[in-house]
């Protein structure tokens, strides 16, 4: 196993093989195979209910998502059975789509607990996503859609994950915020660095593709009915979906 931040280039960050996942006794994901290399960002597309979020939640190790078959290797280590925080410590980070509100827990306190950074450093990070006014607020309490996304990006940016999972980062965000969030996500994924220096990897769920204006992506995957049906260039696949809907994907089922 390689500790976070030190990982051999040119190798695989995430390697999923023959993965089957159940929720409440019902199989939701069937035979998923996916490889994401260091410095690569992949896009996950597919209709609602196709299993995209389930895949992210399974990779992060949340309860209720039972791996019945197959393996998930992260930085070369099998992580099935590891608790969520161990995965976070190895360098995984996830942006929640609908994070819970925790009464009495200030955003600043969570950021400190997650990073061990000083107050001054945390304020710097907060400023970058226009969240300094929220540091003393209870986490997610009364936050708007855009504020939740900015808070999530802020949490990830103090965590410095090597592998970032984002579930619809643009949903509920207005046009002004999307560039702010897009730029912050770009930084998370080392997109401001030259390709040979990029170490961070990502897996992003998007319906609209707006976020792709801010980050380069390496590959797209189309998910239908709990299976990855096809791979390709993310932008072309999205263009196809925009023009023809998911019809062709649905037809793959046959």
């Amino acid at each position, binding site marked *: 196993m390689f500790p976070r931040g030190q990982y051999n280039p040119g190798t695989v960050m995430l390697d999923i093989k023959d993965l089957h996942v159940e929720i409440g006794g019902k199989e939701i994901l069937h035979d998923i195979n996916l490889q994401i290399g260091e410095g690569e960002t992949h896009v996950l597309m597919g209709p609602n209910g196709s299993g995209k979020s389930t895949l992210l939640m399974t990779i992060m190790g949340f*309860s209720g998502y039972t791996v019945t078959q197959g393996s998930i290797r992260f930085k070369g280590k099998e992580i099935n059975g590891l608790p*969520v*925080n161990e995965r976070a410590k190895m360098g995984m980070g996830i942006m929640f789509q609908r994070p*819970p509100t925790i009464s*009495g827990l200030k955003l600043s306190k*969570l950021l400190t607990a*997650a990073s061990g950074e000083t107050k001054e450093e945390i304020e710097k990070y907060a400023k970058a996503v226009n969240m300094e006014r929220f540091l003393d607020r209870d986490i997610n309490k009364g936050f708007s859609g855009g504020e939740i996304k900015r808070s999530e990006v802020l949490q990830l940016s103090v965590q410095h994950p090597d592998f970032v999972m984002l579930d619809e980062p643009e949903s509920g965000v207005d046009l002004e915020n999307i560039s702010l969030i897009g730029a912050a996500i770009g930084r998370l994924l080392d997109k401001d660095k030259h390709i040979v220096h990029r170490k961070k990897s990502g897996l992003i769920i998007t319906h609209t593709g707006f976020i792709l204006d801010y980050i380069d992506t390496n590959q797209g995957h189309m998910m239908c009915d709990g299976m990855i049906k096809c791979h390709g260039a993310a932008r072309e696949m999205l263009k196809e979906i925009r023009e023809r809907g998911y019809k062709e994907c649905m037809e793959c089922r046959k």
Partner: protein
Amino acid sequence: MQKVDVPGSLTPDDRDRMAQVGIDLAMTTRCGSYLQLNQDVAHATCSETGIEVMSIADALERYPELEKNYWKVVQKDKDDVTKHVAAQKNPRGYVIIGRKGSKNILPIQACLYLGKEQIQHVHNIIIAEEDAELHIVSGCASARHVGRGGAHYGISEFYVGKNAKISFTMIHTWGEEIEVYPRSAALLSEGATFLSNYVCMQPVKKVQMYPTATLSGERSVARFSSIVIASPGSSMDLGSRAILAAKGASAELITRAITRGGTIISRGEIQGKVDGTRGHLECKGLILKDGLIHAIPEIHGEVVGTELSHEAAVGKIAQEEIEYLMARGLSEEEATATIIRGFLDVKIQGLPDALQKQIDAAIDAAESGF
């Protein structure tokens, strides 16, 4: 500032337990102090102009007019506890009077310490005259090994004058064999504010109380906040009551209760008796280990123009919240403790920072035990 004249019988452990309930024996953060060990009044002093701290025996002798505040909002024959205290030939306890317009920046501390197997009885009278502002931290504790049979009977009568304010923050660290029966009531005049805070994070055999505030002055405000944890073997029957009896009066009753195997009965009652009154009652309970939390919120409206509401919720910590924090790298234990600390975080409007910090410190001291 004069240090508390500490009796030589106090062991370092006794001092630690006093510190836990907010008693600063060096007096660097307090302006006045009353210390009672068992039935002995060790100390009563106050350096703030216009504020008097004295034993009840001295006060009754010095100020005959105190008769009108003695056994008036708490009745002698209310129950066995009041009867027991009323029957004492030598009353113990303290009187704090904030004269007209006086104000203390540093709080006054009152320490009631039980070191023997016996019934400690006290009768306290706290008066804030017109425009006065009094902030008091009352630390009640017992020595670590008192043995069976120790009990504390405490009568407290509060009189909050016109546009005056009293904040009373009571922190308890009793032993597992101690029974505690506070009997308190407050009378509020026009524009008066009464803040009553109760924190008990340590084991106790039994606490039973139901303080009542009567808001008889227009625009008076009462806020009761209780933060408690019941350990196995602890039984806490806690209530608070606000009687809204004048136009514009309002009350808020807030409870955060956690059981780790003990019993908590959380009562609360707001009576809306006249027009233009408002009240809200909130009880949130967390069950960490099988025990009992029984919330009994009552609202009682008698007229069209009173607005009363209550909310009560009892449950466990949501797994989703724990995993959210775990995804940020916190272990399950750290995540749980962080959520509990947040749950107990009650910011009390109008309370001086020093006292809010005292409450926070009492909660933090127990945090390791989650």
